[in-house]
C-alpha cells in the first residue's frame, strides 16, 4: 500500500457552513463541550449575508458571534475549506489550500445555504453582468463601482440590498427591475408591521429607480456590457450602464445532502421540528432547508445545535420564534414567485452552459438533462452544472443530476486520500 499522506481526524459535531445558521448552531452546541468543527469554503465566516472583505461592514451581531466562537476552545473553524466527497459512513473528504484530509464525525449539521438562480437571457455572459448577490460580494471584496451606472434586475429583497450596497459605494443605480407585480410587492410590504425590523430595512432599501412588473430582456454590448433592455409593464426601455446585476431568487445548496441520502422537497432539504433530516444524527438548518432569511436561519441553527447535543427542552423553547420567522419567509416566497415569462428570455443562440459553450437551442432539442448532457457536454465544466442544471430545471423542468465526487473541483492529490479509507 502506498504511503499515507492523510490522517483521519474526528469531531463529535461537524457543521458545514459558517453563515448565520452554522454560527448559531455552533454557539448553541459549544457550551455543552463537544468537539466541533465548523467548515466554510469562504475565507471568513459569515456566509453570503455577512460576507466580510476589504469593503464590507459586517453587522455588530455577526461580529459578536464571531468573537463568541473564538472564546470556545472546543470549536475549530476551518475557513477556505470545502467538502469534496463522502469517504465512508460519517466520514467526509475535505480540502483547503494546504491539504486534503478525511474528517469523521458523530453528528452533522448541514448549513450549506443557498445560491443565486441565474437564468439565461441574451447577453447574460457579457463581462459586466453578474448576479445580484454576486455584485454585493464583489463590492464587499473590494470591487470599485464609484460613478458606475448599474441596473439591478430579478426578484426579491436581495435586489434592494444589492442596490443599497452599490449606492453606498458610489454607484448610480439607474434601475431596479422587480419582476413581481406591484400588487404582490405592496401586499408583502403592508404585512411587514409584524416584523418591525424588516419594515425598517425595507424603507432603508427603497429607491426611486425601483419598478415592479419589470424584467430584463437583454444585456447589450459587444466586448462588454454597454446597456440593458428592460421590459417595464407594457413598455420596453433601454438604459446605458456599466453593470447589470441579476438575481432570480435563491436555490438551496443541497448537493452534499443529496449525496448523503437526505430527502428533498421543492429543492430544499426536508427537516422535522428538531431540524433533523430523515438520516439519523444528520441535521440541517438555514437556507438549505428553504429560503427564509437570516433571522429564520439563526433560530433554526440554534435549534439544530441544541438538538445535536441532546438539549431538546431548550430547543423546544425556540419553536415559537422559528414559527414567527417562517411566517415572514412564507409571505416573501409567495410575493416574489417567478413570472413564467422569465423562462422564455433566452434566444436560440444564448449560452446556457457557459463552461462548455452550450446554446439554448442545443439543449431545447433534448428531453432530459442526461440526454442533453451526453450530446452537448452541458454541465460538464468547472461549475459542475450548478448554474446550467439549475437553469435547466427552471426552464425545462429537468431534474438535476446527482452530484458524484468531487462535489466541487478538488486536487487529484486530495482525491487520492480516499485510497486510505
Amino acid at each position, binding site marked *: 500500500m502506498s504511503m499515507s499522506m492523510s490522517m483521519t481526524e474526528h469531531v463529535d459535531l461537524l457543521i458545514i457552513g459558517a453563515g448565520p445558521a452554522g454560527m448559531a448552531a455552533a454557539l448553541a452546541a459549544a457550551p455543552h463541550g463537544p468537539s466541533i468543527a465548523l467548515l466554510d469554503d469562504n475565507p471568513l465566516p459569515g456566509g453570503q449575508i455577512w460576507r466580510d472583505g476589504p469593503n464590507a461592514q459586517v453587522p455588530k451581531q455577526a461580529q459578536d458571534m464571531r468573537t463568541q466562537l473564538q472564546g470556545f476552545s472546543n470549536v475549530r473553524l476551518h475557513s477556505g475549506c470545502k467538502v469534496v466527497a463522502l469517504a465512508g459512513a460519517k466520514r467526509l473528504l475535505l480540502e483547503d489550500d494546504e491539504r486534503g484530509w478525511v474528517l469523521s464525525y458523530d453528528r452533522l449539521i448541514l448549513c450549506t445555504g443557498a445560491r443565486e438562480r441565474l437564468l439565461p437571457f441574451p447577453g447574460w455572459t457579457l463581462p459586466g453582468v453578474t448576479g445580484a448577490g454576486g455584485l454585493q460580494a464583489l463590492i464587499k471584496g473590494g470591487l470599485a463601482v464609484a460613478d458606475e451606472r448599474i441596473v439591478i434586475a430579478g426578484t426579491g429583497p436581495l435586489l434592494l440590498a444589492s442596490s443599497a450596497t452599490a449606492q453606498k459605494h458610489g454607484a448610480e443605480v439607474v434601475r431596479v427591475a422587480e419582476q413581481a407585480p406591484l400588487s404582490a410587492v405592496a401586499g408583502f410590504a403592508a404585512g411587514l408591521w409584524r416584523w418591525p425590523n424588516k419594515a425598517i430595512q425595507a424603507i432603508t432599501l427603497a429607491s426611486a429607480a425601483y419598478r415592479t412588473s419589470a424584467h430584463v430582456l437583454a444585456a447589450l454590448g459587444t466586448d462588454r456590457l454597454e446597456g440593458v433592455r428592460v421590459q417595464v409593464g407594457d413598455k420596453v426601455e433601454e438604459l446605458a450602464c456599466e453593470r447589470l446585476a441579476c438575481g432570480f431568487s435563491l436555490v438551496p445548496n443541497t448537493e452534499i445532502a443529496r449525496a448523503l441520502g437526505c430527502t428533498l422537497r421543492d429543492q430544499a432539504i426536508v427537516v422535522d421540528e428538531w431540524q433533523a433530516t430523515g438520516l439519523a444524527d444528520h441535521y440541517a438548518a438555514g437556507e438549505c432547508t428553504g429560503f427564509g432569511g437570516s433571522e429564520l436561519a439563526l433560530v433554526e441553527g440554534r435549534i439544530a445545535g441544541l438538538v445535536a447535543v441532546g438539549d431538546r427542552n431548550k430547543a423546544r423553547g425556540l419553536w415559537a420564534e422559528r414559527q414567527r420567522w417562517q411566517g415572514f419567509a412564507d409571505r416573501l416566497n409567495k410575493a416574489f414567485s417567478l413570472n413564467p415569462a422569465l423562462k422564455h428570455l433566452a434566444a436560440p443562440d444564448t449560452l446556457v452552459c457557459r463552461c462548455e459553450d452550450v446554446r439554448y437551442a442545443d439543449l431545447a432539442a433534448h428531453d432530459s438533462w442526461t440526454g442533453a448532457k451526453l450530446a452537448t457536454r452541458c454541465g460538464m465544466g*468547472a461549475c459542475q452544472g450548478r448554474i446550467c442544471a439549475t437553469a435547466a430545471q427552471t426552464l425545462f423542468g429537468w431534474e438535476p443530476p446527482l452530484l458524484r465526487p468531487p462535489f466541487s473541483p478538488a486536487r487529484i492529490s486530495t482525491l487520492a486520500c480516499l485510497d486510505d479509507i
Partner: protein
Amino acid sequence: MTDAATLQGQAADVIVIGGGIVGAACADELASQGLHVLVLDCQRPAATAAGMGHLVVLDHSAAELALGEYSVKAWRELAPQMPDDCAMRTNGTLWLACNEEEMEEAERKHAALSEYGLACELLSGAELARAEPSLRSGLLGALKVSGDGILYAPNAARWLLQRQSSRVVLRQAEVAEVQGNRVRLATGEWLQAPAVVLASGIYARELCPDLPLQAKKGHLLITDRYPAQITHTLVELGYVTSAHKGNGPSVAFNVQQRPTGQLFIGSSRQFDNHDPQVDAAMLGRMLRRAMDFLPGLGEMNGLRSWTGFRSASPDGQPLIGEHPHQPGLWLAVGHEGLGVTTATGTARLLAAQMLRTRPPLDVEPYLPQRFIGARAHA
C-alpha cells in the same frame, strides 16, 4: 417506419436493440448494405457514455489483434467524414514500461504488432521522456502504437445513427422480451423483422439469460482544462503484465488528454460489483496510481468521476453472430472494454454473416457457438 413495414407487418428489415456505439455501428453498416433498420434505445446509462473512447489495438489473442486492427483502421477511414464534435484524433498509444519485465512485454508486443503490419516503435527511457515530459523520470521505455486514437463515443454513436436517416430510424423504447426475430416492448407492443440484433451491452443478459457475460465495473475521472501537455494515450504495461491480471479489484494507469485540454484518468476493474455509485476507495487508489506516473497530476483539479460496466465474455472476445438456438436473433455483445474500438469491425462481421457476403476476417473466434453450444444436428 419503412416501406417494408407497411407491406408485410415488419417493423423494418432489421431491428437493432441498443443505440450505443455497437448498435449504432451495426445499424449504419446494415443501412449501407441497403437495409432499413429500426434502432430501439431506452437511454439507460451504458458503456458508450461511460468509457474513455480509446481506440486501441490489444493483442491478448490473435482474434483480439485481428478485430482490433481491422476496426481501428475502419475508424481512421471514417475520420474525415466525422463531425468535429466526435473529437476523433489519431494520437497513438504509449505503452509504458516501469521495469525489465514490462520492457520485455513491450518488446514482445512490438514484435507481435509489427508482424501484423501495425506501425509501432520501441522508445528508450530518454526518448519517452522527450515524447511525454510530464511522465516521472526513470521509466524504462515504451512501445508507441501510432495508429491508435481517441474519440467522443456518444457523439460518434449519434452521428452513425443519423447519417443515413432515410434507412435508420431511432425510436426511444424499452424492450421487455426477445423471442428470435420478435421483440415485445415494455408497452406490450410486439415488433418483428427478418432479423433482430441484440447490442445492448451489459443489459443484453436481461433479454437473453444464456449469454455468458460478466460485469466488470470501472471508474474514470476527468480534470479541469489545462494547456496541452500529454500527446499520446498513456497506458502502463502493468495493465497486461500485473495490474489487471487475476480476479481481484485492480487499478492501472491510463491517461489521455482530450482535445478540450481535460485529462481523462483511468482505470479500475472490479468484478461482481453492480453498484453504479463511485467507490471512494477505488477512486482514490486509481488516482494514487496515476500520480505515481504523472507527478504534476496531484496539483491539478479533478472535476467529475463516474463508473461504468464492461460486459465481458469468458475469453474476452465479443459474441458476433446468430444465436444458435434462436433463429433470427443476432448477437453483438460482450465487448468488455473494447466496444468503441471494435464497433466498426463488429458491424461488418455481423452484416457479412447476415447477408452471406464474404467477411473481412475469419468470423470463427467470435461466433456465439463457442459458449452457447451448436444446435444439435441429426
